[in-house]
């Protein structure tokens, strides 16, 4: 309706209106921006319990990290559809890697880094006190705790690293295009040269590349110091890395299926850190919090085109394994997006403000709780890492409202 009147009015009026419209639009944008900026994020820092039950252990001693030679298994292949489409162009470079054999001289360095990474993780978030972190016989004196409360952590490390710096003959099919050519013609020319390059016709020129492939396998055992009994059963963890800089993307020394599964399973964290938005965030931090900016190393240049050093590679794998293991024996935090239900408004407020303990206390003191309140109580427990209590209240909520999909999802989440 507004638009109709708009068109019948005189040209002068039209100008006025469009200005008014523009400013109204700008204001609308501004207020939308402000509203979104004001809504508090309901981000939950959830404490998750350790995967394994560790009983009566208060101290951890880092024992022997031994390197062993032997073979490390290939990761299982992922049969994704997308990898099959490109099977035509894949190429296995020579020498082809058919197995990962661990070598002791590199293994020592990897084991040492693994020990450092593990001690770091344990000191950061575990409830245990570390009493000997070097693996040497002499521990500290002072108050020596009861030996039945001490667990000694041993590890057997296998590490294989293959770094190939070489060249491959890539074919470059060059052509001459007339600018006056039609779109169809230039597209055809593009297809022809692509086809020629993949079939190997064209100039074959030595193109340099670097390919890094590595695998780390660690078997951990946690033994009680007084009687050498197992605190938790010994476990093995494996992690891999494969990446190529330069040369053709589809050619590798590893079979392409193996390489794809390594990239999807073990390297999914790589792309996110390089995004444009995170760069802006980092740059903004240099103004708002310069100490943090330096402490997190954002002032250091980072060019993704430069291949990693072999040390980077070892540290990366050591950290991955260390994190996996620490999750087994120690509670950890993760950020989750959970939905608060529309129950008692005071409790909802407390949960949205991250005050879970207060919310638990408040909701427990309520005489009558609705199904939503029961769910929110469960949520507050879950956010504080108390999964069994959370489950109880999710069950209560589901009893009151059988068909609520949110309650069902919450219950399945805590059962697993």
């Amino acid at each position: 309706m507004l638009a109709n009147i708009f068109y019948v009015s005189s040209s002068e009026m039209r100008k006025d209106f469009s200005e008014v419209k523009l400013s109204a639009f700008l204001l609308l944008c501004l207020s939308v921006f402000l509203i979104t900026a004001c809504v508090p994020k309901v981000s939950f820092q959830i404490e998750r319990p350790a995967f394994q039950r560790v009983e009566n252990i208060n101290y951890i001693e880092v024992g022997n990290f031994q390197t062993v030679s032997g073979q490390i298994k290939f990761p299982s292949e992922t049969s994704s559809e997308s990898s099959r489409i490109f099977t035509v162009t894949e190429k296995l470079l020579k020498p082809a890697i058919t197995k990962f054999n661990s070598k002791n001289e590199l293994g020592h360095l990897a084991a040492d880094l693994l020990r450092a990474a593990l001690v770091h993780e344990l000191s950061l978030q575990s409830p245990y006190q570390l009493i000997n972190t070097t693996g040497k016989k002499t521990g500290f004196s002072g108050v020596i705790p009861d030996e039945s409360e001490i667990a000694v952590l041993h590890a057997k490390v296998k590490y294989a690293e293959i770094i190939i710096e070489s060249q491959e003959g890539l074919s470059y099919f060059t052509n001459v295009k007339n600018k006056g050519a039609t779109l169809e013609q230039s597209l055809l020319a593009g297809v022809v040269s692509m086809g020629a390059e993949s079939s190997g016709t064209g100039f074959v020129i030595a193109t340099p590349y670097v390919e890094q492939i590595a695998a780390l396998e660690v078997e951990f055992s946690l033994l009680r110091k007084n009687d050498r009994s197992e605190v938790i059963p010994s476990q093995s963890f494996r992690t891999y890395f494969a990446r190529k800089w330069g040369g053709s993307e589809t050619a590798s020394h590893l079979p392409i299926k193996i390489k794809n599964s390594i990239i999807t399973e073990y390297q999914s964290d790589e792309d996110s850190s390089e995004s444009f938005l995170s760069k802006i965030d980092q740059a903004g931090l240099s103004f708002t919090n310069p100490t943090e900016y330096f402490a997190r190393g954002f002032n250091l240049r980072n060019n993704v085109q430069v291949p990693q050093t072999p040390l980077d590679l070892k540290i990366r794998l050591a950290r991955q394994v260390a994190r996996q293991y620490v999750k087994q024996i120690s509670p950890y935090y993760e950020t989750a997006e959970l939905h608060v239900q529309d129950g008692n408004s005071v409790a909802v407020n407390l949960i949205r403000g991250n005050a879970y303990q207060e919310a638990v206390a408040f909701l427990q003191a309520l005489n009558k709780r609705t199904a939503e309140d029961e769910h929110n109580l469960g949520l507050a427990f879950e956010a504080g890492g108390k999964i069994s209590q959370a489950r109880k209240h999710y069950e209560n909520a589901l009893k009151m409202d059988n068909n609520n999909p949110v309650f069902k999802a919450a219950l399945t989440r805590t059962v697993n």
Partner: protein
Amino acid sequence: MTLLNNYIFNHLLLMLLISAFLISGCAKATLTVRSPAEINTSKIKNVAVGGFEIGHIMLKFKTERNGVWQTHPVLLNEEQQKSISRSVRARVINLLTATPYFKVIFSDEFETLANDAALQQLVSVRGYKTKNVDAVINGKLWLEIERTDGVDLSKEGLEYFRPPRYRNSLGLNLTVDQVVWWPYKSTRGTLGLEMKMTRLLPTEVVATTFETRTYSQRIGGRSRESFQQIAESFTSVLSASKSSKTDSIESSTDVLPSFEQIIADMALSIASGFIRRVAVTEKIVSYPLAEGSFPNAKVLIEAGAYDLAIGQLQHATAENPDPNDLYNLGLCFEAIGDYGLAQMTYREAWQADPENLLFAQGLGRIERLRREHPQLQRQLDSR
């Protein structure tokens, strides 16, 4: 027409009001907040810095021509390796002396210890006592730096253009594909540094960190995708504006830094991360302020005069316990690092107005701090 004009005008006014309300509702103050040490080091005052053991050092030059790679390791003798470890240690000492919470004791006894095991050996001698040292910091480092001189290869379309000479001719306008070799130089450094703080009496490992920093830079070579270039230039402009003018050569993107420079930058970054764990540090945050009945408080908090604001707000809330003023008082306690009082005051504010999200958020912040810093929890409980 006037009716319509009025209608639009009213709408605009309404929107203006809404946004003004929103802006005021969102009023945030930039506070300098003391953030607790991640680890309870409250009884540690005098700190000695021990030696930094060398786990692994490798410096390499690499060249690549026509796909043939050559590697030339830089052989370092023991003294040169030690000097690298000393330069890393110096960065840590530098930062430690800058924090007012520790006093660095320069003692030969610890500096000459070769490694962690030697320290353990010394400390584990029963009855070992030292007069004035509460804790020792020692470390271990792993370092690799590579410098590469090589060539990128790519197919580029080069344009050839000749204007038409005659009336009916089209002239020449061709795109010719050519293989282009782009020479580049690049460097990459990795430093892994394990640092440990050991309390002497009773002996225990108070804090351990193992941090890694990498540095990589490249000059020349094939230009990157425009999207990445924008991001790169954006961040380099911002970080350049922070650095002083004197080191413009080192910070220039056209010069590869020396090995020493790379080591120093990486060590500094790791050391400041470690200091944050063991010492109380200050950080700048922006938290929302409540619209209290006491306008002076807002000005004082924004100016960072927390002690003064606390005095005045305590006075004001004793007479008239306005929850908004109480919240602002809690904010002041939080800023000076007194989390116990902050929590109490936030709770008072929340009890007076339980529907207020702002107050709940104040409570949530302290609760989160306690959750994420178990040591802080113990400190608060022992009060």
